[in-house]
């Protein structure tokens, strides 16, 4: 029997009045992975996540989280999961250490709050009011609160939205650290770079439906198999030699560069073999691989920022 997934969602549907926020969503999150739900704002990411957390009651569908029903077993589940909510604040004048201590007091087996504060780099700020913290510090505090009960599963909703690149990178390291503790991470993001760098697997959601699920590399391979190789060379016969590669696409020659378009993982290898066999003199060599951003565009017909 395969191990039980941390989260199982099947045929989830959620409407607000006449607006259908989530049409029909199904996916599994495996224990120990970082799983990302990615899509533009309004795609249904947060609604889906809040249904899984037990904060919203779905209209239809089956959700199982750590083997529990998030609505029926809400309080049992709260002890075992940690959440960070999108755009949530704390009391303006609550101190960092007070917040961590209060949260710790709500759980039956809390982590060491002071150690957590230290691990998240907030020791200098432990007596500071919430309102005086920077965006990155606030998010680190929310991560601390999400980890205070040593959860098996952590939910992070748009964790780095609004942060500068440096703070964002620091948060990514923290999230990788959470996985290293053996905790499963379920996150949402509309930043493709974040998904690509952080997630073991992603589900692409658009207009309340899951379009595809897989590792970022799998999704790129499946939906955007094009590869471009750019070879800088002074060999005038190079373009002709490369054109002999089976199934090669357009070959464009400029002053000093040849760009080669092809498909599949094997394409780069074929180009390298062609270089070696023909002893083409290469000055520089680089490849361009499509990203999740391109996958998203291909699957939905619009960019994620639309």
């Amino acid at each position: 029997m395969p191990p039980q997934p941390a989260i199982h969602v099947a045929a989830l549907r959620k409407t607000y009045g006449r607006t259908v926020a989530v049409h029909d969503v199904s996916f599994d999150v495996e224990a120990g992975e970082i799983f990302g739900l990615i899509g533009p704002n309004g795609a249904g990411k947060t609604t889906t996540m809040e249904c899984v957390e037990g904060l919203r009651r779905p209209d239809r569908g089956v959700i199982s989280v750590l083997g529990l029903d998030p609505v029926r077993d809400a309080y049992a589940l709260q002890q075992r999961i940690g959440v960070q909510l999108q755009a949530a604040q704390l009391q303006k004048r609550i101190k960092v250490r007070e917040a961590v201590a209060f949260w710790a007091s709500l759980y039956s087996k809390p982590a060491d709050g002071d150690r957590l504060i230290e691990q998240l780099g907030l020791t200098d700020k432990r007596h500071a009011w919430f309102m005086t913290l920077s965006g990155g510090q606030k998010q680190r505090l929310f991560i601390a609160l999400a980890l205070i009960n040593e959860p098996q599963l952590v939910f992070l909703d748009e964790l780095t939205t609004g942060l500068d690149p440096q703070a964002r990178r620091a948060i990514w390291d923290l999230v990788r650290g959470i996985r290293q503790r053996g905790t499963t991470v379920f996150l949402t993001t509309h930043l493709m770079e974040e998904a690509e760098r952080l997630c073991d697997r992603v589900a692409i959601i658009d207009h309340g439906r899951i379009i595809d699920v897989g590792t970022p590399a799998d999704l790129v391979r499946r939906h955007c198999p094009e590869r471009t190789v750019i070879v800088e060379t002074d060999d005038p016969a190079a373009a002709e030699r490369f054109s002999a590669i089976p199934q090669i696409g357009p070959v464009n020659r400029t002053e000093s560069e040849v760009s080669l378009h092809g498909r599949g993982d094997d394409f780069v290898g074929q180009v390298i073999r062609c270089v070696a066999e023909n002893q083409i003199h290469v000055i520089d060599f680089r490849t361009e691989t499509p990203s999740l951003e391109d996958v998203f565009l291909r699957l939905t017909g619009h960019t994620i920022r639309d």
Partner: protein
Amino acid sequence: MLRGLWRLTWLETKIFVREPMGVIGTVGVPVLIFIVLARMVAERRDAGPPDMPPFIAGDLPILGAMFIIATTVLSLVTIVAVYREGGILRRLRATPLRPPAILTAHVLVKLLFTAITLLLMFLAGRRYDVGVDGVPIVSFGAALLFSTTAIISLGFLIASLVPTARFAQPIGAVIIYPLIGMSGLFVPVEVLPPALQAVGRAMPFTYAASLLRGIWHGETWSSHGGDVLALTLIFVVFTAVAARVFRWE
């Protein structure tokens, strides 16, 4: 569950006193207005025959108490609106805390400051000798806290109505102050138009004013059983409605 409630109440108390404007608004302003009125009453009384409206002369402490209730409930409405808008309620709800505990903590903080305000008013009343001596202050305090609790259930209904935190205070004031006007404190309920009389009878202020006035003048709780019953009933009904319509986000 109860431990979480006490801890949150203590935490919210500390957070509340860190904001000077909030403390001045809920404790300072009612006490200050009471002192101004008390001095006025004292001066007029010393000057000669009383010619001031009866509610100022006889019911000043009741007026003060109603004012405490109004500022308390308005402050609660504002805090709930601010917490909702900032997603603080949402974040607290995503913990093992039971939702009623999150709101009850705020009620307890408000009742604590209601008691403190009353105590300060009482001390001010002694200083200006407006007839607070010999008044059953503990019993009156209990009546005030009881009335406040009933009226807070109306506060949660108002908090469910206000669209944003910005409008919480003005909308709350527009609802609460006219209701106090219909409570029989300024003019007897009987002289109001029938429609306003009906509103007055459905709202807790009328019974609160009657209960507070009676206890202040040394009447027994049992002689105000009707007021107590009405306030309890209003509390139960408003709380039940508020629990259904309350918005956490």
